[in-house]
């Protein structure tokens, strides 16, 4: 087979047109694994903020009306502004971590950056879970204080009748608490799965790097 033989000859002379990487270029590649994980952390945090924003558009009108009537409008607005600012702050931190890691050259710095990223993610998760718990407790406390308005709204707008206020409120709070627990469970599960996997991988890389360093 002539062509294959000619190709073989050509093939062996192509060495001259192949790219050439230096020792340092290759060395840096060994460190790059972590940078892609940190990039994912950054992307997921952005996806998350988009998800919550989209979700807030889906809140039914009756629920908004309820919050407005009971006087929660401004409080919720304030909570939202605060929440988005904190989210934005964390996204900036994640981005900074990502930039730092992808330009890191030495193993020592990389290890430091991995630790920093892990810490940032930990704080981010703690903030989110705590904020959810506080928000649920806060809103229910507000409902508790304003029981009369809640009951009036429910009887007028949802047509709930022939039930005493005391009985209704008891049921209302039981449902609220159960719902709150499920919600927080979901939030924790989400963080455990998504960030848990990424953090474990980062930790593995960290351990590998430590082996190299010592």
């Amino acid at each position, binding site marked *: *087979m002539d*062509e*294959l033989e*000619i*190709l*073989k000859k*050509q*093939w*062996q*002379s*192509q*060495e*001259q*047109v*192949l*790219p*050439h*990487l*230096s*020792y340092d270029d*290759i*060395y840096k*590649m*060994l460190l*790059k*694994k972590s940078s892609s994980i940190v990039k994912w952390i950054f992307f997921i945090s952005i996806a998350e903020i988009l998800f919550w924003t989209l979700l807030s558009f889906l809140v039914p009108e009756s629920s908004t009306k309820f919050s407005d009537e009971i006087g929660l409008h401004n409080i919720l607005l304030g909570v939202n502004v605060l929440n988005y600012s904190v989210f934005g702050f964390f996204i900036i931190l994640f981005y900074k971590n990502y930039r730092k890691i992808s330009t890191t050259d030495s193993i020592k710095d990389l290890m430091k950056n991995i630790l920093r990223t892990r810490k940032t993610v930990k704080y981010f998760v703690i903030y989110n879970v705590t904020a959810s718990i506080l928000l649920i407790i806060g809103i229910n406390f507000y409902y508790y204080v304003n029981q009369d308005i809640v009951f009036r709204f429910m009887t007028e707008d949802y047509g709930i009748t022939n039930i005493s206020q005391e009985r209704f409120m008891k049921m209302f709070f039981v449902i609220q608490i159960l719902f709150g627990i499920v919600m927080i469970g979901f939030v924790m599960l989400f963080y455990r799965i998504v960030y848990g996997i990424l953090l474990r991988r980062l930790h593995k890389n960290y351990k590998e790097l430590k*082996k*190299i*360093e*010592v």
Partner: protein
Amino acid sequence: MNKELEHSFVTQLEENQNIVHKICRLYTNDSDAHNDLFQEITIQLWRAFPKFRGDSKFSTWMYRVALNTAITLYRKSKRSIKTQDFEGVSFKISSEPYDDTTEKQLKLMYSAVKDLNDIDKALVFLYLEDKNYKEISETLGITEVNARVKMNRIKEKLRTILNP
């Protein structure tokens, strides 16, 4: 100790990097994909390096790990490789001048090789690297007879592509 391991790995990879570049060139179509594959192979090699005992040559071991990585990734992405893309590959540098027909034939040949499936491509690659059937079979983990039979089939396939 581990610093030494790292140093020895990077030095040897630097010396033998052409093998990886050639595999990348065969399995990818643009320089971005080329660099990605190179990096992936580097990481896989580095992961496997502690298990490399040195009972075969570094380059032989490299062929095996690098080709496995390329084959696995290629399977995952399942991108179809378009024949036109190989035009970017330069055949300019050669010791002896070729006339236009040869150049054309070569390009056709190369594109036909790029169109082969992942395993066949690995086989042709090793053949082009002037490996004998024993080495080919060891690298790809098949029997020598199997390698010969496969190679003959590939040659047949290439012949029909080139002379329809």
